[in-house]
């Protein structure tokens, strides 16, 4: 029941925003925040249900397990912060005359549809529906990327649409191959869900599964942004409005990665698990190294944050590839990255509102002009690059200690790449945050809403990295159990 509610709320909100007249602008904003709040509560209920009964069953198509509930949880939390920030950010942009009311309404409609797609991707039990939901997120966010209809935004949107559609088509073919293998092995019943696929372990044709997994990996890998299929990610995330790039970077990549992992469990049941492990580690380390190098010589701070997402997706993929303890650490890493990346994007957004340029060279002395966001940005950068008090330090350490025995050279290369990332981030951050601000920049923050979202997420991150509540621990434990039970 909660699943249907969870899906219904964004749809309802989208419908309501579509019909609100021009005069009731605040209704849209209140509706957005209200919907986001409702989603958080529903996600918490869902998680409770999953913790209680192991699986929340709504119908054959919609059944959420621990993994789905965990992802839904942090999607809704980040969604709440994104809603708050969108309100503040768009108000500021309307005040500056960049966009009008109709664009704001269009923004919030697509915002809710985007969330509907994400929640359905997470809570569904059938692979094809999951694929369709991920495809729906692409379509919903395509117009969000071309929000500021500048030529560069249009170019970014076009590339985003085409590359993602091609990737997802390849992923779709992989899914269908999985289904055909299941049909060949006598999968009865109208819907093929993850459970049925798992029940057929060992009976599926290995060669077919191997090819199918490759198609799924390359297909959904495009959506996760693994190198070399990442090319759309920096353009899309740097041209989209700030809350949307925060959502794309922080949350959407994980949903596609969850898809790959569900298919991997089925693949591992039928073919030698090392096959998928080598592939995932290969993609992970390549993404880490390429992203590290590009971060070092980056000139635009939004693209910098996009490449940092690619780097973190690399680390998380390595973590899941290793399985066992590393999978738990990878899930935690996913949670911390999902909380931190929006903080970085929101504070970068505040820089943009103040300096109105995304070039690192043009932002100087942020500590004196926008002190709160500068401190939040600096703290989040240190947390993301793994400075100690942050949970990222522990998760990276856990992943590498799991990897050191099987893949020592990969771990050493990863350490070097992480140092290069730290060097790059430190170079850019200290250039932006310290130093003297240009005289013509007025001091003081944009508006209160944009700070509330930053503070909310950073607080949650700080709490979860130092003290992990019992319920969250068991939820993540069960989720990790789901995707790596045989390694």
């Amino acid at each position, binding site marked *: 029941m909660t699943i249907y509610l969870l899906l219904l709320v964004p749809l309802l909100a989208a419908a309501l925003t579509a019909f609100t007249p021009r005069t009731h602008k605040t209704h849209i904003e209140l509706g957005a925040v209200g919907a986001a709040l409702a989603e958080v509560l529903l996600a918490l209920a869902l998680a409770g249900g999953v913790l209680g009964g192991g699986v929340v069953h709504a119908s054959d198509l919609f059944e959420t397990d621990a993994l789905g509930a965990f992802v839904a949880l942090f999607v809704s939390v980040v969604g709440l912060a994104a809603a708050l920030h969108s309100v503040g950010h768009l108000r500021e942009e309307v005040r500056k005359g960049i966009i009008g009311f109709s664009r704001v309404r269009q923004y919030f409609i697509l915002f809710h549809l985007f969330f509907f797609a994400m929640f359905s991707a997470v809570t569904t039990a059938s692979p094809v*529906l999951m694929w369709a939901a991920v495809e729906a997120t692409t379509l919903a966010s395509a*117009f969000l990327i*071309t929000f500021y*209809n500048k030529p560069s935004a249009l170019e970014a949107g076009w590339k985003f649409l085409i590359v993602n559609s091609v990737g997802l088509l390849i992923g779709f073919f992989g899914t269908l*191959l999985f289904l055909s293998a299941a049909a060949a092995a006598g999968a009865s019943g109208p*819907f093929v869900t993850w459970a049925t696929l798992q029940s057929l372990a060992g009976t599926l044709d290995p060669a077919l599964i*191997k*090819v199918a997994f490759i198609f799924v990996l390359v297909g959904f890998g495009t959506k996760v942004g693994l190198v070399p299929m990442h090319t759309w990610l*920096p353009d899309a995330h740097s041209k989209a409005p700030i809350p949307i790039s925060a959502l794309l970077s922080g949350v959407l990549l994980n949903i596609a990665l969850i898809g790959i992992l569900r298919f991997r469990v089925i693949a591992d049941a039928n073919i030698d698990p090392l096959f998928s492990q080598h592939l995932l580690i290969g993609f992970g380390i390549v993404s880490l190294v390429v992203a590290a190098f590009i971060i070092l*010589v980056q000139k635009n701070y939004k693209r910098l944050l996009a490449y940092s997402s690619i780097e973190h997706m690399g680390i998380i993929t390595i973590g899941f590839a290793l399985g066992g303890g590393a999978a738990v650490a990878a899930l935690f890493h996913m949670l911390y990255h999902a909380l931190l990346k929006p903080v970085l994007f929101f504070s970068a957004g505040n820089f943009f509102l103040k300096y109105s340029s995304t070039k690192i060279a043009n932002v100087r002395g942020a500590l004196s002009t926008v002190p709160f966001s500068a401190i939040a940005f600096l703290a989040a950068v240190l947390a993301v690059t793994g400075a100690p008090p942050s949970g990222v330090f522990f998760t990276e350490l856990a992943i590498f200690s799991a990897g050191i025995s099987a893949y020592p050279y990969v771990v050493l290369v990863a350490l070097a790449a992480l140092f290069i990332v730290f060097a790059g981030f430190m170079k850019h951050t200290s250039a932006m945050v310290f130093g003297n601000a240009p005289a013509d920049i007025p001091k003081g923050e944009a508006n209160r809403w944009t700070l509330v979202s930053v503070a909310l997420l950073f607080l949650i991150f700080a709490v979860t990295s130092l003290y992990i509540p019992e319920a969250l621990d068991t939820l993540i434990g069960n989720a990790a159990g789901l995707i790596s039970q045989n390694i």
Partner: protein
Amino acid sequence: MIFGIQILALCAGLVFLLSLVMNLVRKNTTLISLYLVQSLTVAVALVMLSSTEQSPSLLYAALLTLGVKGIMAPTFLFRLIRKYTAHFSAASYLSTPLSLIVLAAITAFAYSVAPALTGSGAAAVPLLFAAIFSASFLMVNRRGALSAVIGVLALENGIVLLSTILGAAHTFALEFTIGFDIAVWIAIASAFLTMLYREFGMTDTDMRMMSHLTEE
């Protein structure tokens, strides 16, 4: 039911042939008409399959493909072409003979990949694999934005047909979601194309005009 298998192989051959020709043709309008014919062949193949396997859902799938890909997509695209007079086509990176050589290589590769997939060795599978890869080559080789859209649609045709042949049990819900997705995708792609034509004001929207987003 040998007759059914023959027809299927024939349709697969036709689909492959069409995606090959797409790579060689110059004008956009012929490109779209080729895609129209391909969608029709896929619809016919699906009808044949539904009769051989007595599953009504395949029939719905055939109807849906006919409706969405046969009618909706071409009308959108033709209206677009007429509106922005984007008659003549985009150039491609490789000259025709060269792209022919690459296509031959791709087909060889498809034929080497296909046997691993199906023990049963239906003749249609390698053909459709080759159709998929040549559709992807179409997108890589031709510079026009429209050719990217057509490439995606052709790729989708190949995939749907190949997966049904390989026996992915098609249920109505599956067919409906796929059809709905493709329809929405076509709508968004054409909206994008209109924006591109209006923004970059070029008929064949050469990709190189739109490569400003780099790291420098």
